[in-house]
């Protein structure tokens, strides 16, 4: 722990100059300064949010609103806009907007970044900050009838809540019927074969074409943020990330927490553990992409078809490898702060052999998929040119992961904000610029190949690693108590995109505020953009191509 002091100093020093620059750019708009571990913080008046964000976006190039964190303090409310750039992920700035305690009203950022729509709705829902000028400030995760804001300080958990069905009455609005023929309102979901979980899509159709569409989320809200706030850093939080994106992406999620908490508490992870992490995380990515591929095929093909089963079969091999490694099939709980919980299973040769066998068979399997899916003319007719998401729109909605890369945005945190062992390895970021459902499918299929390349190199490294240097965990104190009011926002490349976590330490062994930036949450917001004017089947296909997991959307 002697290292504890060194790194933050360097970061703060580098940040300071950047912070000064940006403060200069904004001039009088800045009323104060803060320092977050990941970025400089600029304090802005609540009625000048848009001015500041427009300036940062247009003049300083911060085109990615990664996350909006809201919190209630004893003396104020605070919204933090975590801004960064698609071209340079390491260039970050936090725009801090405090509002008064008795009238928490802050200007909305929605005109600057479309993604702020849902993020601010969530902030309003859970914390209670009102955003002036927001187009549709309703609750998003909780039912409309919910009383109080659960993450607020004066929230009474014992208060009985009555959620009636009244608010789910037909919201068909006057402007949808009338001049252009008759429209029909249908509820697609929450119990529908193609919504991949409990998603409710309120859809207005004209014949079979989607006129208006709004995803209604929150059915799977499990208070993950609050649960994390009640756990201690060292051990009690790590099991939760497995349950966000629970479709076999567990280790990728665990890494998001591990990275954030390690940077917060300044823990250095041994190289050997980093390689194990990288390898196992990429295995998770393959498993996750296999599911995405299979369910997308399911959406386009119809019933449970051969492709879905093939994808499940290949995913099963990965799951077996992960089970050997972690002892679990889905809820791994394998990472620890400072490393991983245990070393590779013995006999190591057998384990490596298993991975190698899988990697050897993978090209044949992928070729089979390409034969059956991507080269199928009907599938091409169904997916090429449908669900189009232009890059500017994708950026405005904060789309990340395969969704962004399918729209030609060359953005991958593994490379752009490197962590783990990725920058030591030889692999490529997959980008397709078709912007349609087909591109997103292709991106995932090609990413499986890249992941295989990474795993291959990791296996080679691990095999030759000297036996007495297999250090799987750094020396981490039993109780972690990061300094009060240290704030950090860190993200990793999850299976669906940028999975970020914001932690504010309050001097205890539990986080003061734990905020999850879910990639699916932002990606799902693009669904109306992609689907309006298209047929229902294409909307379903677009939804499938977004590859959302409701556990992560709703948290």
């Amino acid at each position, binding site marked *: 722990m002697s290292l504890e002091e060194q790194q933050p100093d360097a970061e703060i020093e580098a940040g300071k100059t950047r912070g000064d620059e940006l403060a200069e750019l904004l001039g009088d708009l800045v009323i104060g300064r803060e320092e977050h571990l990941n970025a400089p913080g600029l304090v802005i008046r609540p009625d000048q949010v848009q001015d500041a964000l427009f300036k940062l976006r247009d003049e300083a190039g911060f085109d990615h609103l990664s996350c909006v964190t809201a919190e209630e303090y004893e003396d104020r409310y605070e919204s933090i806009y975590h801004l960064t750039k698609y071209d340079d992920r390491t260039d970050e700035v936090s725009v801090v907007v405090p509002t008064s305690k008795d009238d928490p009203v802050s200007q909305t950022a929605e005109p600057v970044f479309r993604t702020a729509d849902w993020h601010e709705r969530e902030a309003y829902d859970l914390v209670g900050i009102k955003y002036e000028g927001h187009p549709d400030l309703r609750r998003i995760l909780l039912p409309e009838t919910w009383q109080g804001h659960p993450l607020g300080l004066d929230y009474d958990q014992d208060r009985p809540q009555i959620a009636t069905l009244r608010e789910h009455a037909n919201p068909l609005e006057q402007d949808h019927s009338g001049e252009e023929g008759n429209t*029909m309102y*249908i509820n697609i979901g929450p119990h*529908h*074969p*193609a919504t991949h979980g409990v998603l409710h899509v309120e859809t207005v159709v004209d014949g*079979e074409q989607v006129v208006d569409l709004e995803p209604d989320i929150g059915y799977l809200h499990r208070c993950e943020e609050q649960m994390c706030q009640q756990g201690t850093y060292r051990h009690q939080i790590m099991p939760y990330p497995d349950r966000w994106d629970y479709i076999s992406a567990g280790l990728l999620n665990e890494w998001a927490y591990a990275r954030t908490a390690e940077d917060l508490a300044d823990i250095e992870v041994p190289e050997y553990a980093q390689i194990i992490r990288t390898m196992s995380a990429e295995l998770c990515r393959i498993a996750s992409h296999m599911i995405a591929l299979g369910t997308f*095929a*399911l*959406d*386009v*093909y*119809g*019933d*449970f*078809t*051969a492709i*879905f*089963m*093939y994808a499940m*079969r290949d995913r099963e091999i990965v799951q077996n490898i992960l089970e050997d490694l972690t002892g679990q099939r889905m809820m791994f709980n394998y990472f620890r702060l400072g490393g991983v919980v245990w070393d590779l299973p013995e006999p190591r040769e057998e384990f490596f052999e298993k991975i190698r066998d899988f990697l050897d068979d993978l090209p044949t399997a992928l070729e089979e998929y390409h034969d*059956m899916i991507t080269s*199928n003319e*009907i*599938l091409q*007719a*169904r997916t090429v040119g449908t669900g189009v998401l232009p890059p500017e729109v994708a950026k405005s909605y904060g789309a990340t992961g395969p969704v962004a890369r399918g729209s030609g945005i060359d953005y991958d945190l593994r490379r752009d904000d490197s962590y783990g062992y990725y920058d030591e390895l030889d692999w490529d970021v997959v980008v397709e610029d078709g912007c349609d459902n087909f591109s997103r499918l292709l991106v995932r299929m090609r990413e499986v190949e890249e992941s295989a390349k990474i795993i291959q190199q990791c296996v080679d490294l691990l095999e030759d690693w000297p036996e007495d240097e297999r250090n799987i965990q750094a020396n981490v104190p039993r109780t972690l108590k990061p300094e009060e009011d240290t704030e950090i926002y860190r993200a990793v490349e999850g299976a669906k995109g940028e999975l970020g976590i914001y932690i504010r330490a309050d001097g205890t062994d539990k986080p003061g505020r734990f905020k999850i930036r879910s990639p699916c949450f932002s990606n799902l917001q693009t669904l109306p953009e992609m689907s309006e004017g298209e*047929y*229902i*089947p*294409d909307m*379903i296909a677009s939804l499938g191509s977004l590859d959302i997991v409701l556990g992560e959307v709703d948290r």
Partner: protein
Amino acid sequence: MSATLQTTLPDTISGLLGLEGILGDVVGGLVGAFIIANIMLITTAIAGPWAKRKITAAFGDRIAVNRIGPFGLLVIIPDAVRLMSKELIVPEGVDRPAWDLAPMVIPFSALLGFAVIPMGSGIQLADPETGLAFAFAAASIASLGLVMSGYASNNKFSLIGALRAVAANIAYEIPLVITAASVVIFTGSLRMSEIVAVQAEPLLTIAGVSIPTWFAFVNPFAFVLFIIANLAEVGRNPFDIPEAPTEIVAGYQTEYSSIYFVLIYLGEFIHIFLGGAIAATLFLGGPAGPFLPGFVWFVIKIWAFFLFTQWARSAVPRLRVDQFLEVGWKGMLVLSFANLVLTAIIVGVIA
């Protein structure tokens, strides 16, 4: 002409029972219909709960039912009990008579079609001069059932499903019938036994093996057209638009449970077999085939068509509804008329 006619099943039965006149017709007809209906119901019982699972599983690299009986075959019984003992849920606001009638119209229209199909070994219920037209007409009654179920269900998904079903039937029934008409140009008769008889003549002989004049050999193009239109007609991938489970839940059958669900499902399977039976009669020589009895060949042929639909279902993506109709109106219709005109010209020139 009448010399080539086979004795129909009712005549055989009344002959065996020694009954004559109207009594013979009635008893023979009823017993014959009972036998044929049961043959089809048994076929469907094997196809629905067992064969479909096994076939789909084989395509998807799975094992499927294998616990009860040889190859899991006896799963049919518990499945039947399970399906029939489920609660029949009647949603609020359904249009009662229509909603109840639809599940009956769908399977019985398909069964009706089998009345004129020559199944070989003397199993044919009736052999009217308009046999082929009757088969198509009977099969089309199902569309009425689909509209009834979709409209009466008081469910938007059902309604969309019914509209799609009607659109599909209109778009694909015309090519289907037109293509069948090109066969009639060859045979000069709509009578099913006649169509089968014409195909029995040898087309050519290679090394002592004579190949019959099956119209699939004479006009393979028409055969392919017919099979594709038939897929759409029975609503299987890539044309399973009316159901499209991932899009509109289950289409017209969304609101049906228990025995009504069984009836609709039954109807779909019998429809597949009817589609196979018409295709076999028109293009594959009906029940003809070497060595085995005619009825066995007939069963083999309709099961081959069933297998084909299941293969398509497992491997071919579904078209979008507009693409589906486009293929029907702009592709199939044009091609089927071209086929008809060409066949007419060629037959006219040769004759």
